[in-house]
């Protein structure tokens, strides 16, 4: 064999990254080597890491939770099967916030994830797909799958300086993906280059009858062929994202990225998305509400762990103790929040209002884009909005990654603030990608410099529903331009 498949190299790194706690389970080295890679598959020899809330039958699937700490799924998720069928080798299952609930990959039964750096001080890898991001960043795999419910792929990509893509809702199969908030959950892709992300997306972007929310072929055919990024595009700058708490380093990188696109012949336009202000609040009502429902199945009766001893009294069900012990504090908190907002006394004021805001957020985007939303408009492609834009460019997160020691002292509300820029695209189901933009040296964060972390800011490109390829193309341009400049 002329080329050493990349996974041999990855295996060699295993011990060097163990302290980052990026993996919950690793494929057994001997078994990986013994699998003869299918040399014909398009992903032959490619090494893949899978977030641990995506079901695999070879390795345990824990979702980072104590209640599933020993769970082995009887089946593979569709996305896993498609990668394996194409010849990819699964390296392991990555660590994450329990059931995807968190922004720093700290809320895991298996301990927090740290990102690569020199010093003792750990730095947040972002969450909830932090393990997947670190696995890519550290070169342990070519590509990693994550899930993005409110930014869980884009935020870790931004914090670790890699590419993280959340496709349009309904394009990638969710069959076998453990639900957190299933109206928002999207399988996402993390890699070092836009091209690797694109290849993976092309492989997985197929209808799956097993997923009832998978876009059916007839609707897929209605998605328009997006504009080419080679033609001049109208780039939108959402004004509401220029918040006062935005770190100067990030604002600077944003301007830099806009200039890069302008230099490519695209035009820049300010855009208003007024409902964005309420998006985060709406998200933190809707996601916990769905989570409280989706997580009701974990009772240790059919699978998963059970509390020691007798559980159940005449006054309670047979798994009150099991659920109390099996879930971590953040998950318990969100289940309680969701249970409240769905209760008869609160649903009108919380859940229903939040759904209305979700609709407004989507309408904001539809008004901003020149292309009509193919899911909303009727069959004939309606007249495009000439004053609209083709894609939006904004930061992925308002801050640079923080020290884990700082985060530990934060309350959960400030944790959610990291999601403020990623949540709107999730609520509207839009394709969004985060790509790293270098920040000026004079803006470098001293803490991060001390830790020896490469300093970049994540920039987010958001497109109209179904314009996934356009989003990827613009990301490529930004990526190439930046390299040229550096």
């Amino acid at each position, binding site marked *: 064999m002329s080329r050493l498949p990349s996974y041999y190299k990855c295996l060699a790194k295993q011990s060097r990254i163990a302290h980052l706690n990026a993996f919950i389970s690793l494929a057994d080295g001997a078994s990986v080597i013994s699998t003869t890679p299918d040399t014909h598959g398009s992903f032959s020899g490619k090494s893949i890491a899978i977030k641990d809330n995506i079901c695999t039958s070879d390795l345990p699937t824990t979702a980072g939770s104590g209640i*599933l700490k020993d769970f082995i799924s*009887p089946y593979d998720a569709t996305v896993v099967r498609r990668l394996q069928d194409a010849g990819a080798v699964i390296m392991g299952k990555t660590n994450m916030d329990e059931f995807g609930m968190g922004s720093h990959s700290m809320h895991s039964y298996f301990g927090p994830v740290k990102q690569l750096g020199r010093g003792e001080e750990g730095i947040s890898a972002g969450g909830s797909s932090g393990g997947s991001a670190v696995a890519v960043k550290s070169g342990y795999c070519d590509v990693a799958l994550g899930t993005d419910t409110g930014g869980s792929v884009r935020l870790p990509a931004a914090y670790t300086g890699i590419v993280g893509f959340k496709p349009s809702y309904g394009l990638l199969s969710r069959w076998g993906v453990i639900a957190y908030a299933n109206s928002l959950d999207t399988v996402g892709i993390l890699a070092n280059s836009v091209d690797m992300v694109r290849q993976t997306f092309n492989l997985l972007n197929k209808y799956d009858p097993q997923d*009832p929310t998978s876009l059916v072929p007839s609707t897929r055919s209605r998605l328009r062929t997006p504009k080419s990024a080679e033609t001049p595009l109208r780039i939108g700058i959402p004004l509401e994202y220029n918040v006062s708490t935005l770190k100067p380093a990030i604002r600077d990188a944003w301007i830099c990225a806009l200039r890069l696109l302008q230099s490519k012949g695209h035009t820049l336009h300010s855009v208003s998305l007024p409902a964005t202000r309420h998006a985060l609040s709406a998200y933190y009502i809707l996601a916990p509400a769905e989570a409280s429902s989706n997580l009701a199945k974990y009772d240790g*009766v059919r699978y998963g762990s059970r509390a020691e001893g007798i559980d159940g009294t005449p006054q309670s069900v047979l798994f009150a103790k099991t659920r109390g012990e099996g879930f971590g504090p953040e998950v318990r908190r969100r289940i309680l929040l969701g249970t409240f907002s769905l209760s008869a006394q609160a649903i009108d004021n919380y859940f229903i209002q939040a759904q209305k805001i979700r609709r407004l957020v989507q309408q904001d985007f539809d008004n901003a884009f020149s292309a009509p939303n193919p899911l909303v408009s009727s069959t004939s492609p309606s007249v495009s909005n000439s004053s609209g834009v083709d894609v939006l460019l904004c930061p992925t997160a308002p801050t640079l990654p923080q020290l884990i020691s700082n985060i530990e002292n934060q309350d959960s509300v400030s944790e959610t603030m990291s999601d403020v820029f990623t949540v709107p695209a999730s609520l509207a189901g839009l394709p969004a990608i985060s790509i790293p933009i270098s920040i000026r040296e004079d803006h470098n964060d001293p803490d991060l410099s001390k830790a020896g972390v490469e300093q970049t800011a994540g920039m987010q490109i958001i497109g109209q529903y179904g314009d996934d390829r356009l989003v990827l193309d613009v990301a490529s341009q930004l990526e190439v331009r930046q390299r040229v400049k550096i």
Partner: protein
Amino acid sequence: MLAHPFRTALAAFSNRPYICQSCLCRVKPQLLASRHPVIKITSRALQTQDNAPNKDNAPFRKSLKDAAKQKRKQERENAGASKKSQKGKDTRLEKWELTVGIEIHAELNTARKLFSSATTSVNELPNTHVALFDAAFPGSQPHFQIETLIPALRSALALSCNIQQKSTFDRKHYFYQDQPAGYQITQYYEPFARDGHITLYPHDFPSGVSPEGGPVTIGIRQIQIEQDTAKTVLQPPSTYLLDFNRVSHPLIEIITLPHIHNASTAAACVRKIQGILKAVNAVTAGMEMGGLRADVNVSVRERNAQAGVAGLSYYGVSGLGQRTEIKNLASVKAVEEAIIAERDRQIGLLESGGVVEGETRGWTIGSKTTKRLRGKEGEIDYRYMPDPDIAPIIVGNDVVEHLRETLPMLSDDYIQKLVSKEYGLTSKDASTLLLLDDGDRLDYYFDVVENLRSTFSGTRDVLSRVGKVAGNWVLMELGGLFKNEEWSSSRVPSDALAAIIAHLLRKQITGRTAKLLLSMKFEGDARLVEHIIIDDDMILRPLSRQEYTALAEKVLEGKPDMVRDIVENQQHQKLKWFVGQMMARSAEGTVEPGAAEATLRELLQLPPLEQK
């Protein structure tokens, strides 16, 4: 959007029973047991301090037997006292009016579960018909089985509901070990059928009289489609075994308006809905097999309450008293008895100055009163949430129209047909025929009539009578023979009964001979009716006029006092005794009762017998 595939499904299903074996063979259902032999749900014993769930796990037939025993015992004990208290109750009922609304859950007759391609089953090996989603495995998603809509839609049409063009699925949350997902998928916000009704006619009541005096129409608020739960099997002392075969079996829930004011009306309503669901082939089993369960909402109010005293209201029905709900009634009898017990409890409470609390109560067969399960403060908040994984169902008008056109005849239609001139039955006989043996008796009856009609196709005056005569024989004569035995249509094949009746109508045999023939066939005589008649020399050899007169004179001479009674005291019914004597004194099959009576009347100079 879904209308198109639905039609395709319809084409395959419209003319066949819903359980289509070839479809079952074609697909490879994703069953835990078959496809993933590695993963088996190891039996997990749940340790608990709870001794028994509030669910009725005793086999139904046993409960019935126990109840009957209990009741007999009670009746013996209270033989004297009960009459008095009964009377007391009656005056109370003049003051208080009962109001009842019913929720009926029925298992649909479908090949597959509601949200997976796993096949439905009854009494199969536990946990062999369970797909990943049914057992709520992480990452699994619902696959709505569109064919399950067909029996659901038929039920709704048969109950005169408006089929909603769009309906949606919601999650109803509560924790119980028989509910693997922690929620039941049901239709709370937008059910598939609304605003139906059912009319109860006097013949729908066992007594033949409706307590309201005439037909009663009961509104149906809505029908929704939902999932069934797992079966819990108690292994004493404290182990529960769970069988997930029943999980996600499609159910419909039929919710009536509080339009019912009598316990017997409620029972008749449940019985009739059950019959209708069966008639349109929408359900698998009757109530007694556990295929149907009912919850009843019971309240009472003072009949002469002054206007202006505001009561409670429900879906447009106002002025109601505080209601309680009695859950999980598994038989028509339980529905009736539970309502009576709860009505009396509420009246007693109100008359002694108490207040009825809104609460959930239980009823066990044979008990005298309902039992409190939980109060309002203990009510479960189900936190209904639209299921984000399940798209709305869109039902096209063409589908609804097709199903409406192909709807089988309903019991009311049958009764109308049977009491019409065409068949000439009384409405009591018609409804008896319909209710017996799951409709088998009716089919048998139609076969007999059909056979007789072709036999007598040329004889008009006989033709008009065959319906009534056949009804009499199928219900009375054959019914008497089957009194203590399970009905079987092959015991006396319909053509054999038709042959017996045909001979009778042609006056080739006497009625007595016909009955004898019937019992011979019933006891297993394999010979053709025609052969038995010849072999056993049963053919009617009519006596000559002279012979009749001689015979009649002879019997009249023996009883001059009776003759006097007949002639002078007009006691004409005593003629029958002489007819019997004439028949008894001559050979089998020679004396026809009609001819005998005519002769007697002639001799005694009485008016001739009226033609019936």
